[in-house]
């Protein structure tokens, strides 16, 4: 028992991710943790999307299944698992079966390099960001094969439109990413890096989130990426290929039950993945806000209380809603359930005030909070913006984002290397 | 013999590259469907890339860790393959629009 605690302690104080340290056991543990965390996040996203969208549309959303609809995702999952598995007549069975798995594979493999902390990633590949962009572009293949294998024209058109859109916005995404990578090479000591942990460490060394670097170049690059990532994941306002009123659900029309839930899982995982890229590249990853402006151990201590306070606030919201529940005897179980849920949240909040937990949970909390902010943005976009028509969509991708990205790349390079460029120009003029 | 089979050396990669090259050549020479012929050409290019990167690793063992010429060459080959696939498929679409078939045997408008 003591040896086990010592083993865990010796691992937790290492300074390398389990992948780079060659530690198979901990790498597997991290992979399982990422899997479980992602599933919980997708379930939470399902509930949050329906509730937030409903509140934005001045209605209540699901309220029946659990207290305030909290058990609705579980009911949805059960329904999808128990549905009849229909394969359309004339569909290519092998390809029809493989297509959802390609999309899920692409969406889940990306999380191998996502850094939740300086050592809290499964591994730290030195081509981290390249790997993430590449593997997330494999989901296009899954969508195209899904549309083709359904042997029906609505899915085919939806799949072709969706993949054309994704491929177009990948170019803009790549340019924005490259202009952020350029900023990592401005450390005093390094030559720039593609590794995700290295990018956040570059932001830590330069003391500024890349969002605010070379103002306004960082923000415009972030803006380009934020728009492109919404189009990349086929979400509103770029969701023409899967909109119900246009194409009867596009490429996943013929998929029902468990296969559809795989597409759904892959879509939300891809959203979390591209949000992680945006958070790592521009928003400072796991760094707390104001790393440079509010320096010092007292500010560190003050910021380290925020995770606990957040969970206590969530628990307090649950208790407040428990008090507002109707006093009818039929609502007794729901009231008890909501009170229990609030108690669990408050307990987690109290746990986060203990010093050993407080020191370690900061990185993961800040990363997750920033990604959660992006998820809220996604839902906000869906509730606010009307849908783009397909030709408008392609026009924005190729004629607006691509030239802006290119100009931004050149400007970032020029501004980043201004000292060397000025020295060379001066040298030319002195001769 | 036993250790030669389990000690992966450059020769293993070259043999694998040669096998893929042969498969690609068979595909180009025997299939009638133009798209599959183009995919076999991609197989050939991949076999060549594998050779290049294997030789780059071998070169690194002699000339130090910065002798990455094979890898740079492989990146250029991938770029070339992309350009050639795009143009080839463009030709295919133009031809398909005229003749409604994707068989290589029927590209014989200039035959006497």
């Amino acid at each position, binding site marked *: 028992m003591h040896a086990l605690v010592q083993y865990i302690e010796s691992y937790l104080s290492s300074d390398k991710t389990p992948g780079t340290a*060659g530690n198979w056991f901990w790498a597997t543990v991290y992979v399982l943790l990422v899997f479980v965390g992602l599933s919980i996040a997708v379930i939470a996203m399902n509930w949050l999307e329906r509730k937030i969208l409903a509140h934005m549309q001045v209605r209540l959303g699901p309220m029946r299944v659990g207290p305030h609809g909290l058990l609705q995702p579980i009911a949805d999952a059960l329904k999808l698992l128990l549905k009849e598995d229909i394969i359309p007549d004339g569909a*290519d069975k092998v*390809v029809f079966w493989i297509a959802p798995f390609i999309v899920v594979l692409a969406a889940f493999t990306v999380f191998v390099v996502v850094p939740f902390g300086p050592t809290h990633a499964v591994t730290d590949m*030195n081509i981290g960001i390249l*790997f993430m962009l*590449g593997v997330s*572009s*494999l989901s296009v*293949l899954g969508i*195209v*094969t899904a549309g*083709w294998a359904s042997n029906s024209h609505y899915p085919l058109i939806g799949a*072709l439109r969706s993949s054309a859109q994704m491929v177009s916005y990948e170019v803009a995404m790549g340019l924005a990413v490259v202009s952020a990578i350029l900023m990592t090479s401005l450390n005093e000591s390094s*030559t720039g*890096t593609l*590794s995700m942990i*290295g990018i956040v*460490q570059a932001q830590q060394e330069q003391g500024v989130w890349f969002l605010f670097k070379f103002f306004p170049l960082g923000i415009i690059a972030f803006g380009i990426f934020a728009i492109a990532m919404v189009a990349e994941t086929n979400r509103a306002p770029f969701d023409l290929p899967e909109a119900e009123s246009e194409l009867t659900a596009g490429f996943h029309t013929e998929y029902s039950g468990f296969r559809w839930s795989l597409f759904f899982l892959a879509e939300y995982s891809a959203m979390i993945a591209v949000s992680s890229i945006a958070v790592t590249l521009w928003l400072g990853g796991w760094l707390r806000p104001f790393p440079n402006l509010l320096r010092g151990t007292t500010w560190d201590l003050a910021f380290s209380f925020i995770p606990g306070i957040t969970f206590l606030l969530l628990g307090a919201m649950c208790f407040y809603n428990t008090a507002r529940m109707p006093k009818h005897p039929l609502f007794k179980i729901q009231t008890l359930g909501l009170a229990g849920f609030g108690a669990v949240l408050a307990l987690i909040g109290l746990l986060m005030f203990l010093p050993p937990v407080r020191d370690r949970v900061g990185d993961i909390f800040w990363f997750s909070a920033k990604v959660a902010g992006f998820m809220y943005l996604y839902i906000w976009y869906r509730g606010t913006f009307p849908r783009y028509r397909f030709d408008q969509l392609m026009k924005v991708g190729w004629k607006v984002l691509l030239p802006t990205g290119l100009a931004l790349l050149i400007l970032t390079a020029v501004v980043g290397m201004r000292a060397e460029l000025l020295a060379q120009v001066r040298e030319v003029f002195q001769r | 013999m036993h250790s030669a089979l389990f000690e992966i*050396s*450059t*020769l*293993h*990669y070259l*043999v*694998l590259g*040669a*096998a*893929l*090259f042969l*498969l690609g*050549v068979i595909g180009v*020479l*025997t299939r*009638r*469907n133009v*798209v*599959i012929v183009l*995919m*076999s050409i991609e*197989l050939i290019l991949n076999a060549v*890339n594998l050779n290049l*990167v294997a030789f780059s690793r071998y070169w690194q*063992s002699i000339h130090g*860790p*910065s002798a*990455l010429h094979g*890898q740079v060459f492989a*990146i250029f080959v*991938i*770029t*070339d393959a992309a350009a050639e*696939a*795009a*143009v080839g*498929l463009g030709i295919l*679409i133009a031809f398909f629009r005229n003749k409604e*078939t*994707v*068989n290589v*045997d029927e590209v014989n408008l200039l035959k006497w």
Partner: protein
Amino acid sequence: MNPSLAPNPPVATPFFFYGLAAIMIIGGILVITRKNAVHSALALITTLLAQAALYLMLYAPFVAGVQIILYAGGIMVLFLFVIMLISIERAEKERQFNKQWLVGIVAAAALGGLFITVYTTTTKGRVLFPEGRASYMDMQNTQGIANLLFDQHGGTYMFAFEIASLLLLVAIIGAVVMAKKRI
């Protein structure tokens, strides 16, 4: 961000190499023998991904990343697009192998014999490629490629890089011109 100079010893290399080699060969055989072009394309995607893994085993992570992005995520999407735009159900019912398939196999067998002859030649008992002790600096792979491409004093491939970009421009214009509808 200290570059790790001590190499990580490769783990279970023969197992991964033979597994990936088997995937690649089976994928290659499926590419050239399937009736359905989409099945061939999927088999080719599998081969390309296995090749990216082999590049990782050869300590070439950047080339592996480029292979996944460009080949599997770009060129194969292009292939699948074209296969779906030209609906070739009619082609599945026709004869798949052309009339000179025997000559093709004989030529490929001759080429295979040439390869075997070259690879098993040992002059004076020395093996063909004597391995040195290869060191491995993981963090420096991308930087090394960038040095070869862009460095002011050591970059020998800058001209090739520019010519490649010109080639891509020509290919874009050519593909657009050829696939355009003539009204």
